[in-house]
């Protein structure tokens, strides 16, 4: 009776398909009033004056908050880092400066959302405006070295420069990617409720309840024990809800002043400036190789924009540090440019998805330069030792992914010559790429309560954002306790539960999942001890004995187990997830349209706990990659310095009609170094290297190498 490894349907399936799952904006809150944020219409300058008189007199309005009357907030510590739960260090409504377009400048609170929104339009602001700094190839020339942020900014193993210089084959190209937004279906929302004792409950759209609590505690100056953050269902996160954004701080502060529950939901357009985004990148790659395709040296330099006030680095040059062997040396570096925009933030999949586009495109260029099959080139450069750390990989099924993925795809039928495959009027292209994704190790706690009726309750302060957290926790507990999965219920998403980590970086299963397993083991051990004391065989070993009987004999109603997973930040081996991806596109050569025909993804994410939800993660990641490759870009007006296409009709995410059936293979094995449950990260991995696989397929179809994402029509005419 193993639940783990079974394609079990989601625990919360009925709630989600009947409309009964309550997301943040769905929760009924007594006497709630509605806040609407008013934003700056300029990108750089200051407010000379702000007139709120008319707005204050508008129907239903309770208050208007600006930098003049919102209580002062405590600054967050410098140097700021993105493992910190603050989306950006610049605090809202604290001064008259304008540092980016659509920056929050006021909050109107009224009885209804319509009343607040209308009153917001009555606020008169005079701006003093200066030309905004915007990112682009020109601005990139002014890039600066930032301080370290997550990983080291630069890396160097061996002598990459020399190795490239000495190589008979060199590839030297510049690649770029566009600004992108998470565009979760659920807009960010918060409801702040203070009670008579000065305790704050935040109903929050977050992937990080404990981080939200910490940050709000710090900024508003109230002890963490006085704050509770709740999020039981999240309508998509993708990194953009892992941090605290201005509207949450404004709402909490305003609610305290008003002594009323305040609800704020961002509009779709506001999500573009008031929450994070993935910044554009300009990446230079140099490869040196021999004539067979064996890499001697890799050099990867990335330039990305950040806000005027934070040193955010998108680690686009991270991938080559550990993906392929390059015997002579690997060197990487990052620079940033400060521009008038809000601070960028991780977006599925941060760092790797950008960098892999450049690296895997360059590898394809190498393969064509020497006339060697792209799969062969990658097999040739596969490595069992992490080039960056010199440590062996805990598990690395890259070779298997390449070989079995290629076989599933039918790669051997591909004719390598560009423009050599056709289907009627369409050019057919087949391309591939390999991917790597970081494995995170974070502490997590959980509690499992075993009840007399043979049911169990799992409790952990984790999150359900569509990844299947409820379901995999149920499976892990079921197997550990020897109970059928339907006997396990799960509570997550509340800071009153045992502390867990942010649900980011594909880390929840391996880390929070491990804490659930430990808690279940703990309670099982207690049951065994109880059974031993009563000379019984514990129920998980002997189905003849029921928990009811065991508990009754010992006059116990329930047993509680605690799980405290506290991994070392570094394992003894290098742990990453891997994949090999194969795409087939059809290109209309007259019209420049690219559509995906079919796709095979072969993944090494360690042990798969639930093949059904894992497959869903994979197809989701592939489709994110399709958007990355072909349609998604947040366009900045060069004069106004603002994102212009701030909606779903301007920012094009793939539709149902863009996506064929997708084929997914899981080829990993139990990785005990990664986690006691043997799993490595999957969600982010699946959207890494989709874009280069598609771009390489486009090259194969057309003979045109597009080095600037997205691959829009005009780039193929």
């Amino acid at each position, binding site marked *: 009776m193993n639940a783990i490894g079974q394609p079990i349907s989601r625990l919360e399936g009925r709630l989600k398909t009947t409309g009964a799952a309550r997301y943040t904006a769905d929760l009924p809150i007594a006497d709630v009033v509605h806040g609407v944020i008013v934003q700056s219409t300029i990108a750089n300058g200051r407010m000379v004056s702000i007139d709120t008189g008319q707005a204050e007199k508008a129907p239903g309005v309770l208050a208007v908050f600006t930098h003049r009357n919102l209580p002062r907030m405590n600054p967050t510590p410098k140097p700021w880092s993105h493992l910190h739960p603050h989306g950006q260090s610049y605090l809202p409504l604290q001064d008259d400066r304008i540092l980016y377009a659509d920056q929050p400048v006021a909050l109107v609170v009224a009885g209804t959302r319509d009343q607040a929104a209308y009153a917001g339009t009555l606020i008169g602001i005079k701006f003093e405006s200066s030309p905004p700094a915007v990112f682009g190839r020109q601005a990139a020339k002014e890039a600066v070295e930032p301080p370290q942020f997550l990983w080291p900014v630069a890396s160097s193993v061996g002598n990459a420069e020399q190795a490239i210089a000495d190589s008979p084959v060199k590839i030297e190209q510049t690649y770029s990617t566009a600004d992108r937004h998470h565009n979760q279906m659920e807009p960010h929302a918060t409801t702040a409720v203070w009670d008579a004792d000065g305790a704050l409950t935040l109903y929050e759209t977050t992937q990080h309840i404990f981080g939200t609590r910490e940050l709000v505690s710090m900024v508003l100056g109230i002890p963490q024990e006085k704050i509770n953050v709740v999020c039981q269902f999240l309508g998509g996160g993708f990194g953009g809800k892992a941090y605290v954004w201005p509207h949450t701080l404004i709402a909490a502060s305003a609610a305290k002043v008003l002594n009323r529950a305040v609800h704020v939901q961002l509009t779709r357009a506001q999500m573009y400036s008031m929450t994070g985004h993935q910044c554009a990148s300009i990446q230079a790659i140099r490869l040196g190789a021999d004539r067979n395709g064996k890499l001697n040296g890799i050099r990867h330099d990335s330039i990305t924009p950040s806000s005027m006030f934070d040193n955010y680095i998108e680690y686009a040059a991270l991938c080559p540090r550990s993906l392929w062997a390059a015997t002579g040396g690997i060197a990487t570096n990052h620079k940033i440019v400060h521009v008038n925009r809000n601070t960028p933030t991780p977006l599925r999949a941060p760092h790797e998805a950008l960098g892999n586009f450049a690296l895997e495109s360059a590898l394809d260029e190498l393969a064509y330069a020497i006339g060697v099959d792209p799969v062969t080139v990658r097999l040739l450069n596969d490595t069992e030792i992490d080039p960056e750390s010199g440590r062996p990989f805990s598990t690395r099924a890259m070779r298997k992914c390449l070989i079995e993925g290629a076989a599933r795809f039918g790669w051997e039928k591909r004719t390598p010559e560009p423009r050599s495959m056709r289907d009627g009027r369409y050019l057919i292209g087949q391309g591939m790429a390999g991917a790597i994704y970081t494995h995170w190790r974070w502490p997590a706690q959980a509690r499992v309560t075993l009840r007399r009726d043979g049911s169990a309750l799992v409790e952990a302060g984790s999150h359900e954002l569509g990844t299947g957290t409820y379901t995999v926790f149920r499976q892990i507990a079921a197997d550990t306790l020897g109970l059928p999965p339907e006997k396990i219920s799960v509570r997550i998403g509340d800071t009153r539960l045992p502390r867990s980590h942010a649900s980011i970086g594909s880390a929840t299963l391996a880390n929070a999942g491990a804490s659930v397993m430990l808690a279940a083991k703990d309670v099982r051990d207690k049951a065994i001890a109880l059974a031993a004391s009563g000379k019984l065989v514990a129920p998980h070993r002997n189905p003849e004995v029921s928990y009811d009987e065991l508990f009754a004999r010992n006059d116990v109603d329930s047993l509680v187990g605690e799980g405290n997973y506290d991994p070392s930040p570094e394992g003894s081996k290098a742990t990453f997830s891997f994949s090999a991806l194969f795409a087939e596109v059809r290109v209309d050569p007259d019209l420049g349209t690219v559509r995906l025909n079919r796709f095979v993804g072969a993944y090494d994410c360690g042990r798969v706990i639930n093949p059904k939800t894992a497959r869903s993660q994979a197809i*989701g990641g592939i489709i994110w990659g399709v958007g990355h490759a072909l349609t998604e870009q947040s366009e900045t007006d060069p004069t106004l310095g603002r994102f212009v296409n701030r909606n779903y009709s301007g920012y094009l995410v793939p539709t149902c009609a863009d996506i064929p059936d997708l084929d997914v293979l899981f080829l990993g094995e139990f990785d005990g170094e990664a986690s006691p449950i043997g799993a490595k990260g999957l969600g982010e991995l699946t959207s890494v290297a989709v874009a280069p696989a598609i771009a390489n397929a486009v090259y194969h179809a057309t003979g045109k190498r597009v080095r600037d994402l997205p691959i829009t029509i005009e780039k193929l005419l």
Partner: protein
Amino acid sequence: MTTTYPAQAQSDGRTDVCMTVNGSPRTLRVEPRTTLLDALRDELGLTGSKKSCDRGECGACTVHVEGRRMLSCMSLAAMHGSHRVTTIEGLESDGDLHPLQEMFIEHDGFQCGFCTSGQIMSAAAMIEEAKAGWPSAATVDVTEPFTIADLSKAEIRERMSGNLCRCSCYPNIVAAIAEVTGRR
């Protein structure tokens, strides 16, 4: 002659609109500017229909009005007096899930679930449209009659394209619908 509708505007600018929601007669007290979506969510507590784009660009607010799928964010509640409105909360019958709901669970046709109400409501009406012989942009030749037997996966994909899913569960959504319509 122009009749102000609804005739009995109240002192707070709100008016009462009567409609049948999920089979029950309901009276909603709304302002003229209140969208059908806001009225369903805020006045009736039917929060299954979601506000995602609020501009008719995503489909998360899809409900049935007089049996047809519509976007409740782009319509005013006061325009729907006497109409029959069905939301996701009304799709079950006698506690039994609609076959689409069952198949969405079976095929994992959702992840975060935020678009799911709209997807299922859209699919339910889409199947009726296909049965009624409506063609689509995926129909090979619109001059030919269309029957439900022509509802291929390509047809389903096109007809479901008004419902965005950012978790990107499209292939599973199509599989769920295809199973319900008997097209595997």
